[in-house]
């Protein structure tokens, strides 16, 4: 009999560390794990040790030369000028010792999650150490070295002829995954993100729809800066149901970046914990209605690692277990154990309190604009329905 859900976790995830004070900090995975333990929602038998990805698996997506450069960089043997073409040694993705091993561990975590779902041992698997969606074929970028999500999708496609729906709710466009599957009709990517007008990486416009055979299987809904819960969720819900119904996936991979929160220092959206309760709940529902439950949930961005990420990601696990989301107070023991280390005062409740931010003056216009983007993105599906009726 298959278990409902498994949680991939290893102390090694924190080895993926560029330097002190780098915004990408895998301590957030440890904080989430600890929060779940102290909430008595995660026990020994739920936890699955990740394997390490092999070079062959990494090269399902990445070039040999790039992998070799990452290996050299991790041994201190890559000259700065050699790193440039691979995006290694920049402010975003500096070199660090054993970076190949650290990155392979994250990929291995995601592949472990995939293995268990493909083998039918588990319906849902959660790997919060993964979701590094900016990695390109031969270039590191946006804090991402190896693109575990893309590798996982290639791996699924190699093993099974499953149609894969990839859903990316990180505040930044899921560009790496999108471009890798841009011409693949069996992989549908949906990214909802803050508009690239100002924000990294700049792409993710509605008009990016895929190419050749893959035309119509890339969906992008850029939302305006200062978008709030209501509008974000309107876009997410409608896009999810419409696209899932149209594409009919066999398996879902979600990238659960938690950087659309108003506290996040790198984006300009104004969402709160409410979206992190609904996002996994709808993904879970869709996994059951279309994919016999097959759902792999990954982490992603998230740069307020104390107030936002642990609560947001803990909810994914709670939903994956098939339970109701957490409500009420956070466990005292978690707050007490971390409050001295945290530079900000820790939240007391699972929900956010009201009025975390000042009222947004152009809320109506932002909501309208986001709705227009949503409709533009889904137009291609609606037209097809109209003509086939």
């Amino acid at each position, binding site marked *: 009999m298959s278990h409902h859900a498994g949680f991939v976790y290893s102390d090694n995830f924190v080895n993926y560390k560029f330097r002190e004070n780098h915004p990408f900090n895998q301590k957030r995975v440890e904080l989430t794990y600890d929060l779940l333990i102290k909430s008595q929602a995660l026990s020994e038998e739920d936890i699955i040790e990740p394997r390490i990805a092999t070079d062959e698996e990494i090269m399902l997506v990445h070039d040999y030369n790039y992998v070799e450069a990452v290996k050299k960089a991790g041994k201190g043997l890559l000259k700065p000028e050699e790193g440039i073409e691979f995006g290694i040694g*920049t402010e*975003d993705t500096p070199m660090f010792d054993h970076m190949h091993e650290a990155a392979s561990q994250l990929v291995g975590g995601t592949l472990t999650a995939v293995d268990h779902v493909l083998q039918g041992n588990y319906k849902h698997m959660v790997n919060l150490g993964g979701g590094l969606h900016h990695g390109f074929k031969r270039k590191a970028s946006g*804090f991402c070295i190896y693109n575990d999500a893309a590798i996982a999708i290639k791996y699924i496609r190699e093993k099974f002829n499953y149609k894969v729906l990839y859903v990316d709710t990180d505040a930044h466009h899921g560009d790496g995954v999108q471009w890798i599957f841009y011409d693949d009709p069996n992989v549908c990517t949906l990214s909802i993100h803050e508009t690239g007008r*100002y924000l990294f*990486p700049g792409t993710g416009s509605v008009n990016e729809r895929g190419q050749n055979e893959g035309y119509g299987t890339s969906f992008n809904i850029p939302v305006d800066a*200062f978008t709030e819960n209501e509008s974000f969720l309107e876009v997410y819900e409608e896009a999810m149901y419409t696209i899932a119904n149209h594409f009919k996936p066999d398996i879902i991979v979600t990238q659960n970046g938690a950087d659309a929160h108003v506290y996040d*220092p*790198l984006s300009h959206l104004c969402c709160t914990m409410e979206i992190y309760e609904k996002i996994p709940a709808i993904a879970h529902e869709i996994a059951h209605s279309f994919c016999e439950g097959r759902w792999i949930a990954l982490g992603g961005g998230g740069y307020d690692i104390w107030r936002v990420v642990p609560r947001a990601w803990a909810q994914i696990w709670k939903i994956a277990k098939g339970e109701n989301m957490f409500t009420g107070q956070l466990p005292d023991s978690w707050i007490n154990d971390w409050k001295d280390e945290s530079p900000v005062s820790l939240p007391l409740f699972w929900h956010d309190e009201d009025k975390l931010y000042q009222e947004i*003056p152009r809320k109506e216009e932002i909501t309208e604009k986001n709705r227009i983007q949503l409709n533009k993105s889904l137009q291609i599906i609606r037209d097809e329905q109209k003509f086939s009726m």
Partner: protein
Amino acid sequence: MLVEEIMSDKIITLHAEDKIEEALVLLNENHIRHIPVVNSDQHVIGILSDRDIRDAAPSVLEQNQNQDILKNKVSSIMTSPVITVHPLDFIEDVASIFYEHEIACVPVTKNNQLIGIVTEKDLLYRLIQLTGIHEQSSQIEVRVPNKVGVLPKITQVISERNTNISSVFIYPYNDSLTEKVIVLRVQTMNPMPLIDELKRQGYDVIWPNIPGLQR
């Protein structure tokens, strides 16, 4: 940047005696909008736009009528003389030609012979590259006084943080003569330290503007 760097050298041409129906087929098969007409020496003697051809062709509703029109020679409908450019002309000049003459394509000639073609699509492609949007990057806009030496100070802040710049462009701030906006696309996912440093040095970073509020 020069015309020869952006022109397309795969050119589809017709001769003056060719029939309009051939032009119509070429348009549809190649997804093009302009066809230069050349003589036996490859001199450009005319140009056909998709509109010239469609104006001449019978209506789509006239399946069986007026089809003879398509048997006319292209010389009867081509525009002549043709505005051409040289491969060593600047692409800014091509943009002015398009703007002033309200056209969207110029043949490129050298020694009077056709060697390439530049369309507004080629220009737009370069414009997109100018903005830096084709590379993963974040955008920063800074309002600065219109005076000597501001740009190097700003780029210094960025280079000190080991961050590459994808593109820079500068335009007047609200048509002001005394202020400009410098728009930079920088190859980092975390521009906050740059922005903080620019603000610390007294620059007005207008990024992103809060909706509904004055900049």
